[in-house]
């Protein structure tokens, strides 16, 4: 789904960093360097970025069933 607002494990706010991260990584920068510069230190928060897949992009196209 969408990128989480907070890290699942430690609760640090990370939601506001996702778009900056994505933009820089797509430009070809190394994820480790980008995360260091964004101040994401712990591995719990770092995996949130590295393992995230924007499923929402596809889910968005489906009508809501409710």
């Amino acid at each position, binding site marked *: 789904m*969408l990128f989480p607002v907070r890290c699942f494990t430690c*609760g640090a*706010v990370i939601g506001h960093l996702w778009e900056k991260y994505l933009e820089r990584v797509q430009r070809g920068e190394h994820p480790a360097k980008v995360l260091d510069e964004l101040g994401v230190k712990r591995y719990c928060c770092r995996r949130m970025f590295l393992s995230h897949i924007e499923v929402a992009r596809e889910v968005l196209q489906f009508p809501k069933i409710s």
Partner: protein
Amino acid sequence: MIYPLKIQILEKTPFSLKLYIEDISLHVLNSIRRAILAETPTMAIDYVIFVENSSAFYDEYVAHRLALIPLKSDDAILRYKSPEECAEAGERRLFSADCFAKFDLTAEGPEEGEVTVYSRDLVPSDMYVTPVYDNIPIIKLIRGQRIKLEAFARLGRGKEHAKWSPVSIAAHKYVPVIVISYDDCNNCLKCVNSCPRGILTISNNKVVVNEDKLLECSFCKICENVCSTSAIKVLHRENSYILNLEFTGALNPKTTLIIASEILIKKLEEFETKLKELGVLD
């Protein structure tokens, strides 16, 4: 405990604080830590009323994302009613202005492509209670999808839900002391190469501790384990600790520490009064 406490600031940024505290007992420091983590009140969205939600996301999913957004609470903790009173008002669905700060959100998907709704799109009723970060994505919408909601934020405590905690990290650790016995050391340098934090270095053909990096020691004791002559020992200093706090931004570090200490003092006073009432103390 020995007074006065010796406190040294190791790191200080608007969102984090690292303190080196000497002459404090563990249980006192832990009480302070837990008061910060679980007792210090902050504002967070607790009720969301959906007027319309034709987006691809469930109401609960949107409400959960809204709740996790930290809100500036430095001013609010003085003006709004206590978490306990407001929890009760919320149960009865009485969203009075002295308990709840209101946010409105209305958004519609564009004709072409998609739109991201950010935390800055929340329209606050109280100008002092606003999201700390204005670029947290809440949801995405495409053509024909609409969202209209009212969100109510109230004061709460971290013990009720982690969204109300002013800190994301509140931890203390021991202060490491690495002792090397040069009589036993055979200069195999295994310890230098095995330390994952690179704390040990070589100087004048001897293994020495890099004092600048010493505090990074995680007490993994790999150096102790690889040493065949047991020449290296990782010990810790008594009654000295490193307190590491990382803030969500809801409260500034200063307010957090002051409020947490006040709460702790109040609890101890209550305990004392109760004991006096019962005649245990006179």
